């Protein structure tokens, strides 16, 4: 019924040096990935703060995907390793809040890995589709410009 029509909205934070280029390459190579993803380019996944993820869920995102460089391949040496630890911390916090921690995932790709990125996106969309819509999606506060910090 509702779940059959459910199309997840997933926010993807993509590192400029790998996943973002990879998504671009996927376009050039005509590799399809589900349109459920909304990409935000970041200078490095290490730049992502805890608030960004929580705000995404608070505003009704069904899932959040973090796509950073391969381990050992970070443009800023170890930003992706920092992100990995942060994502783990936030997954636990998301569970504390009462959401499924599977709604937040991290993948590692290089700028040439368009196909694996598309595959990871497909997997993420399927995972979230199975989980169903985020219960925060109803009455989610619309995004507005505000001073958060």
């Amino acid at each position, binding site marked *: 019924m509702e779940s059959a029509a459910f199309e997840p909205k997933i926010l993807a934070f993509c590192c400029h040096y790998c996943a973002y280029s990879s998504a671009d390459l996927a376009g050039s190579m005509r590799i399809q990935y589900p349109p459920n993803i909304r990409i935000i380019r970041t200078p490095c996944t290490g730049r992502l*703060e*805890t*608030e960004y993820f*929580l*705000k995404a*869920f*608070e505003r009704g995102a069904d899932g959040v995907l973090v796509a950073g460089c391969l381990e050992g391949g970070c443009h800023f040496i170890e930003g992706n390793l920092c992100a990995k630890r942060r994502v783990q911390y936030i997954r636990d*916090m998301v569970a*504390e*809040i*009462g*959401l499924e921690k599977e709604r937040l995932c991290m993948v590692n790709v290089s700028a040439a890995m368009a196909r694996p990125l598309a595959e990871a996106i497909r997997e993420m969309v399927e995972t979230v589709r199975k989980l169903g819509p985020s*219960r*925060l999606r109803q*009455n989610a506060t619309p995004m507005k410009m505000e001073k*958060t*910090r």
Partner: protein
Amino acid sequence: MIVAERKTVPELMEIVKGHQKILVLGCGTCVTVCLAGGEREVSIIASALRMASRLANRALEVEELTIERQCDNVFIEQAAEAVGRNDAVVSLGCGAGVQAIAERYPQKPVYAGLNTAFLGILEERGVWAEKCAACGDCVLHEYGGICPITRCAKRMLNGPCGGSREDRCEVRADLPCAWQLIYKRLKDIGQLDRLRKVAPPKRWGAALHGGLRKIVREDHRI
């Protein structure tokens, strides 16, 4: 600095049960530095509480504010309006901050959002270690700047205990033996003879056991 860590979201939800409008109040001093109760953490906790309440079908409005210092009336004043328009305050300050806020706003429920843990330092990024037990009668000068009260599991003033194994504490193998550190440090600064002296029983009257402590400086009173 004072080191604290956040309470879990379910704990906080239980604490604010029965309130519809709360203020999450951060502190810009120690707890900002230890990443537990600054502006950023206020945003995180407030966001978490908003989500948790919506998931639990509980109406909860959460306002965010961070003041420079919660243990100082001059700064506490700046929170007056925000405190006034909310049912309760969840303070992300240390225990002193929470109590200072509660004293200043006696009609308002004020809750602790953090567990204040110890006086310590940033050992490395993301790691804080206890350094001082605030015992009120500092003996650091006798022990090469390494505190036997805080860092020896047995709080021995005349150590070592003889139980350490390969420089590790026998009580907790992840800790270095404080007395090994004291010996090494005193040796390095040429003060090993300090260890020949037998330390008398410590003046524990200055510690917390007799109730709260106060320092009065007549030269600064008006």
